[in-house]
C-alpha cells in the first residue's frame, strides 16, 4: 500500500470532513484493530481520532498525506490506550483456559478460523512497538524508511524491531501454520 500523496500540501480546513471519514475510516479501523486486537475498542479509537483531527485541523500544515496525519493521531491514542489496558489487566485474575493443542483445533474447526485465532493470539503476544512494525511492514507494505518516518524512530531501530517481531511470530505460530519454517535453500530470487 503505497503512501498517498494526492492530498499533501492541502490544509484540512478546506476538506470535507465527511469525505475524510469515508476515505480513511475503514483503513484506520483495520490498523487500530490489528494494534489493539478488539473491534469495539478500535471503533472508539478511530472515532476519537477523527474528533481530535477536527479539533486540530487548523494546525495541520499538509506536510504529510491526510492518512499519515490521521494515523499519527490514531497511533498515539492506541499506544496510550494499550498502556492503560496493560495497567488494568495486571489487576485482573487470569483464568487459565483448558489446553487445546493445534491438532485438536484443526480437527474441530476450519483451518481459516484456526489460523485467525492463532494469528491474533500471536500478534497480541508482541509488544505494541513490535506489533506496529508488523502492521506497517506486512499489512501496509511499507518500506523500512517509510516505517521509520511513520513511527519516528531510526531505520536501524525499525530493522531491529521487524527482525525481532518476525522471529517472535515464527516461534509463536504452530508448525501447521509455520510453512515458512520449512523453507529449503532453493534459490527463489532469480539468482
Amino acid at each position, binding site marked *: 500500500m503505497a503512501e498517498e500523496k494526492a492530498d499533501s500540501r492541502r490544509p484540512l480546513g478546506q476538506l470535507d470532513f465527511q469525505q475524510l471519514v469515508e476515505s480513511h475510516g475503514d483503513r484506520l*479501523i483495520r490498523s487500530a484493530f490489528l494494534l489493539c486486537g478488539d473491534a469495539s475498542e478500535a471503533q472508539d479509537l478511530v472515532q476519537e481520532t477523527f474528533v481530535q483531527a477536527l479539533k486540530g485541523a487548523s494546525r495541520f500544515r499538509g506536510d504529510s498525506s491526510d492518512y499519515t496525519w490521521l494515523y499519527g493521531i490514531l497511533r498515539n491514542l492506541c499506544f496510550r490506550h494499550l498502556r492503560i489496558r496493560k495497567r488494568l489487566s495486571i489487576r485482573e485474575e487470569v483464568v487459565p483456559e483448558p489446553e487445546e493443542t493445534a491438532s485438536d483445533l484443526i480437527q474441530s474447526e476450519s483451518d481459516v478460523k484456526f489460523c485467525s485465532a492463532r494469528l491474533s493470539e500471536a500478534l497480541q503476544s508482541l509488544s505494541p512497538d513490535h506489533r506496529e512494525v508488523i502492521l506497517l*511492514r506486512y499489512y501496509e507494505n511499507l518500506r523500512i524508511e517509510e516505517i521509520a518516518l511513520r513511527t519516528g524512530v531510526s531505520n536501524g531501530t525499525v530493522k531491529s524491531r521487524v527482525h525481532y517481531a518476525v522471529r517472535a511470530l515464527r516461534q509463536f505460530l504452530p508448525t501447521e501454520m509455520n510453512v515458512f519454517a520449512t523453507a529449503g535453500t532453493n534459490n527463489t*530470487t532469480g539468482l
Partner: protein
Amino acid sequence: MTCQDFNDNLYRYLDESLDEQTRAAAVEHLRSCSDCRAELKQEEQFAAFLTPALKREVAGVFFDARPLSGLTTAPQSGIPSLAELLAGWLISLRRHAGLAALASAAVILLLGLTAVQRFAPQADRPAPEAQGSSGQEFSVINAPLERESHFFERSGNTVRDGVTWHRAVAHARFH
C-alpha cells in the same frame, strides 16, 4: 559482503532500496551463500503468508461513521463547536464508562445521605411541642441542653434542699 552485512541489508534488499553497488554485492553474496539464500526465502515466504493472513483478519472490520454524522464540517477557528465538545464528551464517557458509573454512584450516595439526614427523625432530640405551658405557640429551633437547678421546699419548720436535672431547649422562638 559478509553474512552479517547481508542480514543488515535484508529488508532493504527486499524493498529494492539498496544502492547499485550494495545490491550487486548482495546478489554476489547470495550466489555463494546457501544460508543467506535460505534466510531470504524464509522472509519471502513469511511475507507471502502473513500479508494475506492479516488482510483476512481485518476483512470484516468496518468503521461505523454514524456517531460522527454531526461532525461534517471542519472548524475554521481553533475554538471547538458545541457539537464537537459533545461528541468528544460522549466518546470519552463511553471509553471511561467505569469511571462515569463510579462518579454517578458517588453522587447518588451523597444525595441519599443528605436526604436521610434532612428527613430522618433524630432520637436524641425532643419532639417539638406545638403548645407551651403558657399557652403560647413556639417551635424548637435548637438542640436540647441539660441544666441543673436547685430548689428549696418548705414544709412546716423543715426546709428540703434538692437538685433537679432538666433537659431543656436551649433556644426557642415564641410567636
